[in-house]
């Protein structure tokens, strides 16, 4: 029997972010406080990327940073806020400036748009959005959603366009170097979103031996066939959370929220934590090992 050598898709965070050109369209993974690709957002800011279009269901501090630094100019999404605290401060300011535009859908609509893209069909039907301004009002898309009668039953459904972004960016707990990714806890819309992208970059808390993945294949939610590159990135979602790995750092999140209420405060945060450091490891060093260790999940609790 001939054993194929294990393919190695590993690249660095810097290399991964460099692949994304100005104006690219991205599926942005994670949901709420869970597994946002925060380190990828930081690196895009450091590399001064511009005019990205971001597709996601519900995202928070990560896309607020992308908005504050003028990395993203368009969003198609369902929700953004700093949950439990308040409205996303940079996004409010950038909307007032006219620097970003948002096309609103619902969480189910966005998740189905990713599924449609992944399935290779041009649209998906759903029973939400009917009768609302989500259908009636369009920000920048020529066509956003369409109410039609089902040709089989005659009932009304909304059709939403599928999405096939240039890149899908997801952050997961474990991946092997071939790109087989495993997610603990909720998956949000990452299972569909990862499959929708033309190129897929998987960031992970740890890169594990492929034999470990293959000893529990039922845990794999993104098989390597979909995955273009793999990036090892411990604490890649900090100050948000990764199920079974670490809790959020609410003190840091609150500090961010309070400080970013003003443009000056945001610029100070950006300089101190993002552009003032050279890379993700330097950012983590700035946060400090003691602080990070306190956040480690206290098993059997996943936080």
């Amino acid at each position, binding site marked *: 029997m001939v054993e194929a050598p294990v393919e190695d898709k590993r690249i660095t965070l810097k290399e991964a972010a460099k692949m994304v050109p100005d104006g690219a369209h991205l599926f942005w993974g994670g949901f709420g406080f869970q597994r946002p690709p925060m380190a990828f957002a930081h690196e895009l800011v450091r590399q001064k990327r511009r005019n990205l279009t971001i597709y996601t269901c519900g995202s928070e501090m990560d896309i607020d940073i992308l908005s504050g630094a003028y990395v993203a100019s368009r969003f198609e999404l369902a929700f953004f806020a700093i949950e*439990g605290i308040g409205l996303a401060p940079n996004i409010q300011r950038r909307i007032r400036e006219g620097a970003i535009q948002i096309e609103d859908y619902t969480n189910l609509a966005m998740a189905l748009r990713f599924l449609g893209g992944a399935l290779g069909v041009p649209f998906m039907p759903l029973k939400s959005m009917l009768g609302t301004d989500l259908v009636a009002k369009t920000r920048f898309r020529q066509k956003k959603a369409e109410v039609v009668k089902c040709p089989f039953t005659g009932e009304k459904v909304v059709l939403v366009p599928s999405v096939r972004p240039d890149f899908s960016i997801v952050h997961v707990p474990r991946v092997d170097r071939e790109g087989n990714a495993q997610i603990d806890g909720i998956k949000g819309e990452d299972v569909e979103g990862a499959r929708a992208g033309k190129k897929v970059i998987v960031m992970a808390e740890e890169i594990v031996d492929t034999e470990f993945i293959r000893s529990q294949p039922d845990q794999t939610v993104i098989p390597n066939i979909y995955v273009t590159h793999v990036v090892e990135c411990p604490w890649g979602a900090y100050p948000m959370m990764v199920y079974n790995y670490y809790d959020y750092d609410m003190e840091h999140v609150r500090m961010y929220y309070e400080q970013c209420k003003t443009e000056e405060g945001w610029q100070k945060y950006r300089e101190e934590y993002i552009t003032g450091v050279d890379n993700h490891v330097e950012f983590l060093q700035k946060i400090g090992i003691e602080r990070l260790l306190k956040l480690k999940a206290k098993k059997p609790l996943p936080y």
Partner: protein
Amino acid sequence: MKKNYAKPDEFTTLELMAVCGARAIKNGEVVFVGTGLPMIAAMLAKRTHAPKAKIVYEAGFIDSNAIDIALSIADSRLGYRASAAIGLIETLGLLLQGGHVDVGFVGAAQIDEYGNINTTYIGSFEKPSVRLPGSGGGNDIISSARRIVVIMTHEKRKMVKKLDYITSLGYLDGPGAREKAGLIGGGPSLVVTNLCQMDFDPETKHIRLATIHPGVSLQHVLENTGFDLTIPESVSTTELPTYEELDILRAIDPHGIYIPRPK
């Protein structure tokens, strides 16, 4: 069994709102909730009269038995002793749109007299004064759950004649409108505020006063309402929380994250 009610000065308005929300859940129901007061209300229901209720959070946690207060709908805390952790297509698509959800709990920035809800823009669409968080799963829940409970603060600028933006459809302008739009869910059934509870006339689908919280006058409710509220001939006072409910409620949120402790 005789209920042992607390006195009006022994609980806060937020505690009363959480108790009202909890009582809207029946034992055995599948409940779709967001974080904040809805989550506290559902946890209270599960620990009192509705132990068989199954709590679903849209991020993917199903039949959650959380023991710590979550800040995010995707918070790992909600995974504690859940029966499953899946994703959005499972919760909002297969469970909710598939017709398995009895009651959805939502908040609102604005509501009108037919229960239509805005969580997207304050001001005009062209030049909004505030950009709110958006639908999230709110529109999905209000579209497809069998009934909807809304929990929100009672202010004139929130209880409006005309919404700035319709994020989610209540009854639009009266009976039959939801069905005509093609929606499968039953629509709003109860609105719990810091002043009162409101329900919807089954004939006209118009919002009406159901109960007034203790110590609140009808005049005060009307002064803080921007739409025409139907007032039935007799309006009773909201059933007070019991000592048991308050004890359990305070144990659920011991640090007062969503419900600050009474002084």
